[in-house]
């Protein structure tokens, strides 16, 4: 590390990662208690990606996310309250309980969801960038997707169109090595995802997704490239989820040893160690952060618990704009 | 298991009075058997059955007046296996009676106060449709007569029956007059050849087998309808429905007054001998009030012959939904000019009354011309 660490910024990154971690641990607990239903895909282990990338974006930039998006939403700055209430299915949730865990949307932070069709968000991101390009808005659309989406036709179509039309898209691949339970070696002829950009004459890079500062640096570089009008960029963040794909997954496809090996690279512990080594964080600081985050999570749960159910009479609202019913 | 119901013998019949069971319970009956007699405002009818089986105990006793469609007796399967099979379908018997009826007609019937049980459906599979309700409503017997009918418990007197028949005729003829745009064509037909042929023919026959001139007229009409079929059929739902079968309604005056026009079936297919027999039988049974239901409802055209009354020309009123009525006056000797010569010929005036919605005068005159042609070739009739 040649550049000095900005203590405040680094502490903020750590806190965001901690918030995601504790928020999701609580979510798993609430899922077991049937407070949260449906599918629940946890991001634990991958926190450095969302936190590092969001640090490289401006509030005006757009984000298109996946169904494993609690971390992305929290890192983007959405309130834990509205996300938790959404997972409870309450009216006070960000989508009034219409979306749930997989469909978190927020117009105020330009957070375009929450897409549970693998690869489904990529063409939409291209379109958002097309609009920016045609309207002369200088902003980046950051499109998160996993290694599984790389196998979809939508990946190829979107990479091609974005490069062809030089659109300001940051293709952000969270490569956690498994498409649900199938390892990338069983799905990709070329498992080096960043290398695929060559076929589209697109700039790309791969980065250690367990290192939040490295992710932030790489994402900033990519965003700068895009903002300078050079077209899209593919950034592959090599990461790992510590928890099963979803709550209902016995993890037959990977060994406990492999998981333990990756846990040794826990992004939160990695950043904590680095800050301690630099003398920027002591145990009390870390404990204070934990307490602060715990309060926020508790508050989110209380908010969700206190939330209300939308009247069933509103069932058909938001099918068409202005509640036009057909 | 089947049901033997009070039949509908005409669109204007709402109820019938069971007069007599002609077959005892437990008897094996076959399709076409006459098993009861029923009295209506049109007279006494012999009621035939359309299925085979063992006649069950009567559900309606002689003397009872019931609406059309009422089950009079059950018909049980003739063998054990069929009974078993039918045992299942026996279940819904207690359910309210259902008629095949379009939803719209059902609503219309409710609005107009028409009892579906009294309606003869003309739609697909005999379904009652709007037009059937409309017809029924138009030909319905006025309430005064109706209430008089319902009030009685005894079989109707001849006087009441005649009154009812008069009402029915009045309704049908009023409807005809108001709905059907009639047009009339008449033709003087030389009957000399036909009558000469008939005289020779009758000399070969016993008195019982002798033919009346009316038989020639009926058969000639049937053959002419074969050639010009538009006059044989119904006007229904703004549409001419030409019928392939030629069932001629033959007007029979009743001794006590009134008129019934029972049908002689498939006249075009009958020999003159068979036609004479059918006609005699029909007249006899009409006057004794023993007509069959199919004879009451099947006519596709009507012929009226008032020749024996001395009338020369008849302007008939079409019986709806038929589209034509052919009338014959008295056969008389008339002066006849032909080939520049004046002679005396026996002639009849044939009048065609036809529905102008279905046909026009051009076609009508063709019909009379063809009729004339057939009457000039009696040997071919």
């Amino acid at each position: 590390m040649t550049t000095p660490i900005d203590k405040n910024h680094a502490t903020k990154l750590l806190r965001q990662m901690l918030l995601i971690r504790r928020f999701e641990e609580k979510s798993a607990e609430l899922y077991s208690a049937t407070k949260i239903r449906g599918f629940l895909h946890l991001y634990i282990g991958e926190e450095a990606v969302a936190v590092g990338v969001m640090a490289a974006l401006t509030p005006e930039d757009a984000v298109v996310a996946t169904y494993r998006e609690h971390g992305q939403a929290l890192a983007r700055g959405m309130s834990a309250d509205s996300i938790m209430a959404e997972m409870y299915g309450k009216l006070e949730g960000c989508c009034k309980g219409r979306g749930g865990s997989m469909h978190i949307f927020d117009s105020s932070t330009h957070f375009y969801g929450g897409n549970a069709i693998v690869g489904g968000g990529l063409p939409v991101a291209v379109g958002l960038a097309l609009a920016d390009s045609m309207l002369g808005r200088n902003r980046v659309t950051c499109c998160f997707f996993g290694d599984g989406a790389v196998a979809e036709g939508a990946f190829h179509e979107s990479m091609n169109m974005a490069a062809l039309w030089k659109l300001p898209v940051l293709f952000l691949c969270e490569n956690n090595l498994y498409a649900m339970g199938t390892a990338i070696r069983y799905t990709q002829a070329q498992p080096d995802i960043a290398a695929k950009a060559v076929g589209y004459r697109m700039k790309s890079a791969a980065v250690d997704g367990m290192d939040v500062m490295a992710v932030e640096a790489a994402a900033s570089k990519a965003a700068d490239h895009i903002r300078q009008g050079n077209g899209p960029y593919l950034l592959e963040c090599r990461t790992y989820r510590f928890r099963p794909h979803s709550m209902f997954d016995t993890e037959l496809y990977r060994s406990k040893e492999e998981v333990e090996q990756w846990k040794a690279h826990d992004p939160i512990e990695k950043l904590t160690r680095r800050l301690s080594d630099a003398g920027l964080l002591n145990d009390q600081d870390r404990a204070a952060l934990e307490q602060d985050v715990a309060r926020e999570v508790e508050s989110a749960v209380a908010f969700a618990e206190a939330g209300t159910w939308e009247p069933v009479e509103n069932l058909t609202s938001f099918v068409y704009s202005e509640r036009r019913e057909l | 298991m089947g049901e033997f119901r009070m039949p509908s013998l005409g669109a204007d019949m709402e109820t019938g009075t069971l007069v007599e069971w002609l077959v005892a319970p437990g008897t094996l009956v076959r399709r076409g058997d006459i098993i009861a007699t029923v009295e209506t405002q049109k007279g006494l009818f012999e009621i035939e059955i359309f299925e085979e089986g063992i006649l069950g105990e009567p559900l309606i006793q002689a003397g009872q007046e019931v609406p059309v469609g009422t089950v009079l007796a059950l018909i049980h399967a003739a063998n054990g296996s069929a009974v078993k099979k039918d045992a299942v379908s026996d279940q819904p018997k207690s359910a309210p009676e259902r008629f095949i009826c379009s939803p719209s007609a059902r609503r219309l019937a409710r609005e107009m106060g028409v009892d579906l049980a009294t309606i003869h459906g003309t739609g697909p599979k005999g379904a009652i449709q709007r037009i059937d309700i409309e017809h029924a409503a138009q030909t319905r017997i006025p309430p005064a007569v109706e209430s008089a009918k319902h009030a009685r418990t005894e079989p109707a007197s001849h006087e009441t029956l005649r009154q009812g028949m008069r009402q029915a005729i009045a309704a049908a003829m009023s409807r005809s007059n108001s709905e059907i745009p009639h047009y009339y064509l008449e033709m003087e037909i030389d009957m000399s050849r036909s009558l000469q042929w008939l005289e020779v023919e009758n000399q070969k026959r016993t008195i019982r087998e002798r033919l009346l001139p009316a038989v020639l007229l009926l058969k000639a009409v049937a053959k002419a309808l074969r050639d010009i079929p538009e006059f044989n059929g119904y006007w229904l739902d703004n549409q001419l429905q030409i019928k392939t079968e030629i069932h001629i309604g033959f007007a029979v005056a009743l001794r006590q007054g009134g008129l019934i026009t029972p049908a002689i079936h498939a006249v075009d297919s009958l020999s003159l001998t068979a036609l004479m027999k059918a006609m005699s039988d029909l007249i006899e049974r009409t006057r004794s009030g023993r007509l069959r239901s199919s004879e009451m409802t099947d006519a596709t055209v009507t012929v009226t012959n008032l020749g024996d009354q001395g009338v020369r020309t008849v302007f008939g009123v079409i019986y709806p939904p038929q589209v034509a009525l052919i009338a014959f006056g008295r056969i008389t000797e008339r002066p006849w000019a032909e080939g520049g010569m004046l002679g005396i010929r026996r002639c009849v005036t044939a009048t065609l009354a036809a529905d102008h919605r279905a046909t026009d005068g051009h076609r009508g005159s063709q019909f009379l011309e063809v009729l004339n042609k057939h009457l000039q070739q009696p040997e071919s009739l």
Partner: protein
Amino acid sequence: MSGAQSARKTSYREAVKEAIREALQKDERVFLMGEDVGHYGGCYAVSKGLLAEFGPERIRDTPLSEGGFVGAGIGAALGGLRPIVEVMTVNFSLLALDQILNNAATLLHMSGGQFNVPLVIRMATGAGKQLAAQHAHSLEGWYAHIPGIRVLSPATLEDARGMLWTALQDPDPVLIFENNTLYNMEGNLSETAGPVDIDTARIRRSGSDITLITYSASLYKCLDAATALAGEGIEVEVIDLRSLRPLDDATYLESISRTNRALIVDEGWRSGGISAEISARIMEQGFYDLDTPVERICTAEVPIPYARHMEEAALPRIDTIIDTVKRMVRHG
């Protein structure tokens, strides 16, 4: 208002083009995107000449990536533009069905009302040009199954000219299905022809004996049948649905309350089609107006065959319509 508005002869194709041109002129946010819409001039020549007039940004040729560019249209709509996305034929639109159903139709709902998608997708549909089983189906009835989108079916020059602008004003996704056999149809169009409503059905011919419910190219088969039947004294009312979603129930139910009979003529397949939906609605809301069972004439349940006589046999035909109407009106 000038009383004597002049009319001029034009074609369905030209009417669609004029509508696109007007939209491009009136609203800077509007652009056309699709396969071969620019340099080629449009597969059905609808956009011919527009590239020179508006340039490649707004008449945008796309790669053969239906899912990709329909999805991009959704994104562009979310991003503030008013895209007109052209899909070459309805069969190809299946490659974009994921985007249409999973994104365009659902984003507003999933986001709790935060993100609406003001997108118009146009595509050719229908058989009749011997294009066989991958270019000629009529799947608009399928799309009408999907809540969250509108499905339009312009049959006339006025609608070809006028539906697009109204669709572009709609805050939600609108799919416009143009039957490929109509593009060459010529007729007179008023010089003042402009936007039309996209909510209601129209009675294209009045009659008292039976209601024919149809849309798109089948409208003309129904009108021809009605003319022939009038010669036989049967007065047929013909209803052009115009919109398959929403369906204008009121118009056809009112008609059936007068005629008491309904026959649906639909170029889609029968099983589970829009004709089944309409029939069900008549049962639900107009049962007591019926004097005969509702009947349907649809495309035979086969993939559309290539050979001309086979294709004709598969599609609704005028003689079949005439025979069916006669049977229904004349009590079987």
